[in-house]
């Protein structure tokens, strides 16, 4: 049992981890072909796993409807939404356009799916305002720095900011857009790079932990 649950999966992880690592330093066509093959395997596994996900989704919502759990009415929309796309797709043979005409599938995509996506994305604007309001409450020195930097960036993006700047601080010889660009290009990039270096080192170490079998939690216990 240990062989099947632990040793064979670990051997697969080690071999494929090392081969993938080595292929970074080997530009030979065989190395490229290996990476392509692994990528294809991944796609095949993903396709089958999607069926598993779909089954899980239907099972969860079916169980909720069956036991009349809280908000079970929303679960009905999972099936309604599924049918609203799958039935037109079958009728339209998977095509969104038939010549110059829109098929039922194309109609459902344009007027249901895309509209809902655009709505969700548009909601982001309101969330940005509410989160900005929360973060601009000055409670500490760091919050003060954040507020000042954000204020400069906000004012730098609108004409009135430049007008105000030239009237009040024009004598300094610097422009608001110049200051805004400096904040974006220097301290902001420096901070980002610091985070990125930490992430890169962390990713290397995490990969080594997995490839060399130090971290085996994903394999479960013996």
């Amino acid at each position: 049992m240990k062989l099947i649950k632990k040793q064979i999966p670990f051997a697969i992880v080690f071999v494929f981890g090392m081969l993938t690592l080595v292929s970074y330093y080997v530009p030979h066509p065989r190395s490229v072909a290996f990476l392509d093959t692994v990528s294809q395997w991944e796609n095949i596994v993903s396709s089958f796993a999607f069926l598993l996900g779909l089954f899980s989704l239907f099972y969860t919502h079916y169980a909720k409807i069956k036991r009349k759990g809280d908000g079970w009415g929303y679960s009905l929309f999972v099936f309604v939404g599924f049918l609203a796309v799958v039935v037109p797709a079958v009728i339209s043979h998977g095509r969104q356009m038939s010549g110059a005409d829109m098929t039922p599938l194309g109609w459902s995509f344009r007027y249901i799916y895309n509209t809902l996506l655009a709505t969700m994305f548009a909601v982001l604007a309101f969330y940005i305002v509410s989160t900005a309001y929360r973060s601009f409450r000055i409670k500490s020195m760091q919050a003060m720095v954040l507020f000042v930097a954000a204020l400069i960036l906000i004012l730098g993006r609108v004409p009135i900011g430049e007008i105000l700047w030239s009237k009040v601080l024009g004598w300094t010889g610097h422009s608001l857009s110049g200051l805004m660009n400096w904040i974006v290009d220097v301290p902001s990039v420096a901070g980002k790079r610091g985070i990125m270096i930490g992430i890169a080192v962390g990713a290397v170490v995490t990969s080594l932990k997995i490839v060399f079998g130090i971290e085996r939690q994903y394999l479960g216990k013996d």
Partner: protein
Amino acid sequence: MKNNRLVCALFAFLLAAAPVLAARPAGHAKPVSKPAAKASPAPRTVGLTAEDMPYDVGGALLLRWPVNPADDSGTSYRVYVSSRGKGGWLQGAEFPASANKGTDIDLPFWAWDGSASEHALRLDLNGLFGDASPGTVYRVKVSVLQNGTEVSESEVKTARAYGNWFRLDRLNNLVMLIIIVIVFFVAVSHAKRKGLFIRRIAGLDAIDEAIGRATEMGKPIYYVPGIGDMTLVSTIASTFILGEVSKKVAQYDSFIKVPHYDPIVMTVCKEVVKQSYLEAGRPDSYRDDINQFISQDQFSYAASIDGMITREKPAACFFMGYFMAESLLLSEVGAASGAIQIAGTDIEYQLPFFFTSCDYTLIGEELYAAGAYLSKEPMLLSALKVQDFGKLVVMLGVSIGLALVLLGQWQHWHSLVNFVTDIFKAN
């Protein structure tokens, strides 16, 4: 001490061996400059050599010929290539005589010895012939143009492009990797012998508080692993954290929900959560619907989770893994519902959104460290020391490299500047 010496010796050996490894294949002697007749109207020839472009997959040729001192602003070169035995010439490139010098080839000093006294051109065959089949013999020639008129042509050279077995230009990367692997094993063996001090991470210490709060309130905990797949380190790190969080949830007899974007991640997380419930001695509390698939569409996924958070008002929300635009959509709804929120991602431009809307945020590498930190296993904790060592190396590298480049620029030591930038370059 012994290891340090070993690492230094290895690095010195690799650098010393580099010029030998980088040597051009036999039979391709470095072109020798010929004295050119000054401003001679007579047809000029070029000492052309053609060979496989080193360190690539095999789709390019490297052409070199000496710079002619008589070339002026009106001189240009046109390169022809053919895959046939006779005729079939295609124009591969055309450029002025001042361009494509040996120093323009973007390879580090240990892999390339080009000079400004020669022309060097990487001729991409895939762009000309589609997928260039390996082993095909190509014929190349170079024409010299004076004010747009061909005045001479080089002799025809043949060469084959083939796949190489080693990216010598990535030697610096390999050396760095070897050093990190050595330090990794030293740290692991050290961890077996005695304990390691690990600094506290506030976001992870707050996990107990969040789960305790959920238990007291009798409300669920949401753990969102993001929209990444299992090939991403952040998603893998998220599954490690989920293991520790769900173990605590099982111990406290609280309830956790894990909505998924990727079915493979869901399958892995099912095993992880089931294992955690077993380890906590509460296998009876495990339910299959703890992990549920939502959607493989980013905004559908976010909308669905937003709906669940709004209706169920969870006591705690964890957002750990790979997030894009949905980061704020999720965390802002969680904040509005009054949940204690802990987030972690390695996508640096999503971090500000989590900072502003969550109580605690794990920044990049802290996400990777979280699983080890929570499990407190010495072997896993030792990896955190390696992360710190890596950062130390980067800090020293940046400081020393910066000082050397500044010195080189100040004193006009261009070879020093090139040396330092090549050493730290990611090829």
